[in-house]
Every structure is written in C-alpha cells, then in structure tokens.
C-alpha cells in the first residue's frame, strides 16, 4: 500500500511540476509580448539572431528536406504502383511536405541546432552572473536576450519551412521522374491540381507556432538554469526534449483545428 501511495504521490508531484512549468513559460511569453514593442527595438540584436536561427540553419534544413522528399517519393511509388497510380507520387510528396513534414522536420532541426544553443548560451550567462549583471545595469534581460530570439524563431522557422517544402518537392521530383521514370508532366500536373495555397499557408502558420515554442522553451530553460556547468548541460537537454515534445503534440492539435 505504501508503495502505491508513494507512486501516486510521485505522479502527482510531477504533474504539478509540469503544470507549474507551463504556467511559467506562459508568463515568460506575456513578458516577451510586453517588452517586444517597447522602444528601443534593438534591431542589431534581432538581426544577429535572425542570422543565427535562420541563415545558419539553411544547410541542415536543405539536407533534411531533400532527403525527406526523396524517401517519400520512393515509399509513395511502392504503394501507388500496386494500383498503377504512380503519377500521384508528386502530389503526395507535395502535400506531405507542405502540410506536415516541412514545418515539423524544420522546427525539429532548428530546435536541435538553435533551441539548444539558446538554452546553453543563456544558461552560461546565468551561471556566470551575466544575467545578474544586466539587471544591475538596469537593463531588462527579457528585452535584451529573449525578445530577439523569440522574434527570430517566429520569423525564420516559416521561411526555412518554405525552403524545406521546395527542396523536398525537388527531391521527390528527382527520385520520381528521373530515377523511377514517372511521367514528368503527370507528376507536376497532379501537384498543381491537388495542392492548394491553403495547404502551404497552414503549414507556415504551424511553423510560426513551432518557432515560438522552440525559442520560448530554449530561452526559458536557459534563463532558469541553476548549478554550474552541469546545470547548463541539463538545461540544454531539457530544452530540446521539452520543445520537441511540445512541437509534436501541438502539431496534432493545430492540424485538427486547421484542416
């Protein structure tokens, strides 16, 4: 009986801890909103983050996007060949990329690259008292450190998603038309017939939400780091795990609402 009550106790505690954490992240979000539009805008810091989150992620996004499109074409071909509908491979790849895989894979890659870096950088600033130094110099760390990163996340993840969608379809075309010999005209025609602009827009809205999640979680974990180098490591890991889980869970709900 004791063991059961201890297990319930533990479960309850972990639920409470998680709910508390969600609340704190929401409060951080509100604080970001309230600081975002207060001048001065600190454009230099924002552009630095836009470059870090966006420009420097392009290579990994192109790589993952292309291969995802390629493998989808391969798998799709295998399925559609059974009832001689190979020409539908193109639209399947395009719909899959724009609605789902583009935004999700891009944001997971950016989480791994930039979300983790946000947690590590802010965590190091916390344990080396640089964040305290900002407070002491009467500068708000949310304005200075978190707002530029969140703006970068929300703007750049959708842009990277566009890149990912594009190279994914190109990858699919390469495998479908050039390797598997699907008719090129039918491949492209079916894409334009079945993919609507709304598919793309909704994917981009998802991407913006994921960008918000990954930057907010990365900053929150880094900002609240305790316990030296080990703490920074822990914060980084937790940021990647929490952001990835949140992206995948919110993906379901966003899809259910929008499509």
């Amino acid at each position, binding site marked *: 009986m004791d063991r059961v009550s201890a297990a319930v106790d533990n479960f309850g505690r972990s639920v409470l801890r998680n709910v508390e954490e969600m609340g704190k992240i929401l409060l951080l979000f509100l604080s970001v909103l309230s600081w975002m539009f207060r001048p001065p805008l600190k454009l230099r810091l924002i552009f630095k983050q836009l470059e870090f989150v966006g420009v420097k992620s392009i290579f990994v996004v192109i790589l993952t996007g292309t291969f995802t499109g390629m493998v989808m074409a391969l798998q799709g071909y295998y399925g559609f060949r059974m009832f001689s509908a190979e020409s539908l491979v193109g639209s399947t790849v395009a719909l899959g990329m724009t609605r789902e895989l583009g935004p999700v894979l891009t944001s997971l890659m950016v989480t791994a690259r930039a979300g983790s870096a946000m947690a590590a950088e802010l965590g190091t600033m916390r344990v080396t008292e640089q964040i305290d130094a900002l*407070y002491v110099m009467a500068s708000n760390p949310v304005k200075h450190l978190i707002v530029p990163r969140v703006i970068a996340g929300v703007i750049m993840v959708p842009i990277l998603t566009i890149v990912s969608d594009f190279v994914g379809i190109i990858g699919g075309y390469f495998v479908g038309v050039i390797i598997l010999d699907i008719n090129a005209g039918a491949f492209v025609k079916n894409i334009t017939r079945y993919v609507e602009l709304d598919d793309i827009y909704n994917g981009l809205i998802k991407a913006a939400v994921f960008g918000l999640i990954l930057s907010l979680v990365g900053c929150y974990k880094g900002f609240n780091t305790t316990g030296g180098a080990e703490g920074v490591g822990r914060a980084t890991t937790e940021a990647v795990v929490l952001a990835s889980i949140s992206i995948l869970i919110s993906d379901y709900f966003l899809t259910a609402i929008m499509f």
Partner: protein
Amino acid sequence: MIRLIDVHKSFGKQKVLDGLNLEIEDGKTTVIIGKSGGGKSVLLKHIIGLLKPDSGKVLIDDVDIAKLNDKELNEVRKKFGMLFQDAALFDSMNVGENVAFPLREHTKKKEDEIEEIVRERLKAVGLSGVENKMPSELSGGMRKRVGLARAVAMLPQIVLFDEPTTGLDPIMTEAINELIINTQKNFNLTCIVISHDIQSIFEVGHKIAMLYDGKIVEYGTPEEIRKSYNPVLTQFLSGSLEGPIAVM
C-alpha cells in the same frame, strides 16, 4: 545612505539572513567579512534588489527598494555599479563594448563621446588599447579590472565588490586593492566590499562588518576590529579551527 533593518531571508529551510541590521556610511568603504557560504553575496544581492527580503527593509537613500516595481527599481539601480566575482563580462561583446554597455543603454551620448569615456575608464584601471579584445582573451586580473571600468562607467554613487581579489596572485591582489582605494577616493564613492582576504580587509576598509549566523556580530573601524575580543571575529581573523564558527 544604505540601511538594512531586520532583514530575514531563507532558501527553503536554510535561514541565510536572520534579523540583519547594517548601516553603510556614505563616501566610505565598508568591508563585509564572514565565512564562505555564510550569506555575504546574498546580502549584497539584497542591497541591489536582485533578491527581496522575506521580511525587513532595505533602504537606499530612505527608499525601501523591496517595495519598488521594476521601473522604479531600475532608477535606483542607476546609482549603483557592481563588480562581480568573475567580473561577469558579456562574452559576446569585446572589452570596449562591455564598458560602453551602460552608457549606450542609458545615455544619449554620441559614439565618439562614449569611446572617449571608455578609453578614460580603461586607462584609470591600467588597461589601455585592449578595447578590441574579447573577454576570453583576458587574464583573471584583467577581467576584474575591465569589470571595474564597466562598474564605474556611469559614475555611480555606490559600487559593490563581490570578492574582488579571490583567485588572484598576491601582486594582482595588491593592484586591485590599490585600484579600489583610488577609485573610491577619486570618485568619492560609497563602496561595499565582500572579502575574506584578511590583508585586503584592513587595507581597503574604512569600516568592517562581520557577518555570522545571519547577523552582523561586529562592526567598527579596522582598529576597533583588530582590538575586538569577539570570539567569532578572533577565530576568523586568526584562521583557527577552534572556536564558535563550525568548520565542517
């Protein structure tokens, strides 16, 4: 004038400040001593509003900073400069940008004016021509000196020093002490120094306060402190294992 009245602070079950009273004189250097982990940094963080007391008052020029909102607190903080233990320089900025940071944030000075001030402050701490170096390229002593230049960039009234000489060699320790004394004199600052380096304490302090068990147990001029028979103080100054301060 800085006054702490009956300040209590606990972290979980651990009581760190337990009814602490302290008055810091204007235009003087007050050194706060006490054992490691005894709450000295916590005390310092209360003075600048990084921590709020569970109960009691922290008065800066008769304003209780525990009751201020962020905006008001920032106004009070502009009276302060602080040198952190490891200098806390922003490692994404070079030395010049670090020292210029508070000037760019809070003044409307022109760039060449700011550059002139940065050059002056760095010269005052014995560092010239290092503006373009990154903090990671500097030695511990140099980092602290840059930290001090940044702390006095805005000509504050009050400067806080969190263990300024910890981890430095004897010569650099002496250089930093000299720098604290000169800076205090030149800018007529109120300085609060946390230290457990016995030699430095008597060198830089006009007043010395001993923190023990969450309270100030002894306060006086270096002469008075030297002559004190308070067992906590005599044990601390002599570095003895025997006495009221538990070692382990």
